[in-house]
């Protein structure tokens, strides 16, 4: 976690896309990254959390040298991803999510052998490395089978193996658990833990809050191409303690009205059987509400910190499936 040069360093990164047909694409521009600043120290597992269209994949693509930024800089281990691609590429491994990205008519072993060769491994080492990774991602029994017969989860495991084939210092994982069953997803988390202990840096994009909480050292929230916050998962919850909520039962209506009018109280949501959840929006508001409820004779009362998912929804806004552009 301590290194003079950040494993990933991004400064004021912008990327816009022109919409339209033809080679020149002169249509209106869409902003995918809007002044992103991010520094990830070596050895950190960093989560990038955001809704569809937030800019997660675009950032991964810029870092993996396959997409040029419109402006700003991005570096891997001190090497600029735009100007020093030859130095950057041996350092990174990429895993883009989804079913595509593999040679479906070839076996898992043949796929990995080819990628190994492209990372400069000779035949003997390529074979050994492929077998090691196939074993590591749990595909030993399917190693000789064509990939086209693989389930989505199996393909995703093979993607992971491919990302590791070049023994990368920095691993860019773009929604790597998409399509994995819960057991595979748990194994993946274990694998990420191993990668961390090997000293690799991992940038992981995900929609899955539990995953981010479970495997990441720090998490950045991204939306509309802007980084909203970067914190440790637990700190993020604490940082946003102003969104602490109080669950109570049998609160008299007069007292509830009084609480609703208190400074920092955002909402009082009455549920079934006399339950009520009081949402706060300011640090310290929860304590004041709690004190008032207790002094008002309410005995069934509890406070809780929001989960990362709630943080995510609070910060990004509860806009459901809407993709903002």
């Amino acid at each position, binding site marked *: 976690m301590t290194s003079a040069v950040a494993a990933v360093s991004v400064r004021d990164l912008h990327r816009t896309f022109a919409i339209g047909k033809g080679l020149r694409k002169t249509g209106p521009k869409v902003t995918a990254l809007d002044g992103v600043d991010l520094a990830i120290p070596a050895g950190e597992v960093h989560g990038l959390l955001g809704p569809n269209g937030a800019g997660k994949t675009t950032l991964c693509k810029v870092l*993996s040298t396959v997409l040029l930024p419109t402006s700003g800089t991005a570096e891997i281990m001190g090497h600029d991803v735009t100007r020093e691609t030859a130095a950057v*590429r041996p350092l990174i491994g990429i895993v*883009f999510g989804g079913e*595509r990205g593999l040679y479906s008519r070839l076996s898992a072993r043949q796929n990995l052998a080819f990628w190994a060769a*492209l990372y400069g491994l000779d035949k003997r080492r390529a074979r050994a490395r492929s077998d090691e990774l196939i074993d590591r991602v749990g595909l030993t029994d399917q190693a000789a089978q064509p990939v086209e017969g693989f389930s989505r989860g199996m393909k995703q495991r093979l993607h992971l193996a491919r990302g590791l084939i070049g023994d990368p210092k920095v691993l860019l994982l773009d929604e790597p658990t998409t399509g994995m069953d819960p057991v595979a997803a748990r194994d993946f988390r274990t694998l990420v833990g191993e990668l961390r202990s090997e000293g690799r840096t991992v940038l992981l994009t995900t929609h899955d809050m539990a995953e981010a909480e479970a495997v990441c050292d720090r998490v950045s929230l991204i939306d509309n191409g802007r980084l909203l916050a970067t914190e440790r998962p637990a700190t993020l919850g604490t940082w946003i303690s102003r969104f602490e909520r109080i669950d109570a039962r049998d609160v008299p209506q007069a007292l509830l009205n009084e609480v609703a009018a208190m400074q920092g109280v955002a909402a009082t949501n009455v549920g079934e059987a006399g339950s009520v959840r009081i949402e706060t929006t300011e640090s310290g508001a929860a304590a004041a509400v709690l004190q008032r409820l207790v002094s008002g004779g309410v005995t069934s009362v509890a406070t809780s910190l929001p989960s990362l998912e709630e943080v995510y929804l609070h910060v990004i806004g509860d806009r459901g499936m809407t993709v903002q552009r």
Partner: protein
Amino acid sequence: MRTFAAAFGFQLTTMRRSIGDFQPLITAPFFTVIFLAITEHAGRTDLAPYAVLAPTLIALWGMALNVAGELIDSERWSGTLEALIATPSSFASIITGRIAAVTTISLLAFVESWLVAWAVFGITVPIEHPLEFGTTLAATAFAMAGTASMMSAVFVLARSARIFQNSLSYPFYVLGGVLVPVALLPGWLEPLSRVVFLSWSADLMRDSLTVGSVPAAALRLLAILGLGMLGQLTGVLLLRRVLVRVRTLGTLTYA
């Protein structure tokens, strides 16, 4: 060189599982039968080498156009192009290695045609000048690979690659003098034909299959190699430009 060799081997492995890629090799024997049937019916046994050679060149061009030309585009559609570009290997070496494998395989069409002539028509086409023939075949494969890499880069930019492919087949068989020597075409076509390496290849190969001397063989071989080199260089430069363009536009994953 390791990348080139790995890409060459990878292409052979991929094609083993993709029978459709061999379509030009599957049709070559049929072309041989058709052409030989015509020349035999006309009583022109002297044209047998022409009839055997034409399917070879058609297969060479066809595979370069359909398999090699589509390499980058198919990588793009299968979602592997980004990962390929992100590897430390030179993308040009990967593509050149794979195209070389396709071109090498397509040379089998000559063996097929020769065997069909012998088995179906009882015609043995002698290779009168094996050295000239062999070197011309190798030079042609090299030039074809250069043309294919050029096409491969162009097809990345084209959403309707198949339209280009269709228009690049039969017109080039004519311009390349694949069956009918360029000298027999209208005079105004000749300058155009001479910038197509295939026309030099076809003439030189025909000469090396027939009795008599092969005039200016070295010079004609140089013409093939020169045009091939031009194609290779153009292909590499085009590839470089195309990669910058798609990385700039963000269109690596779709055409």
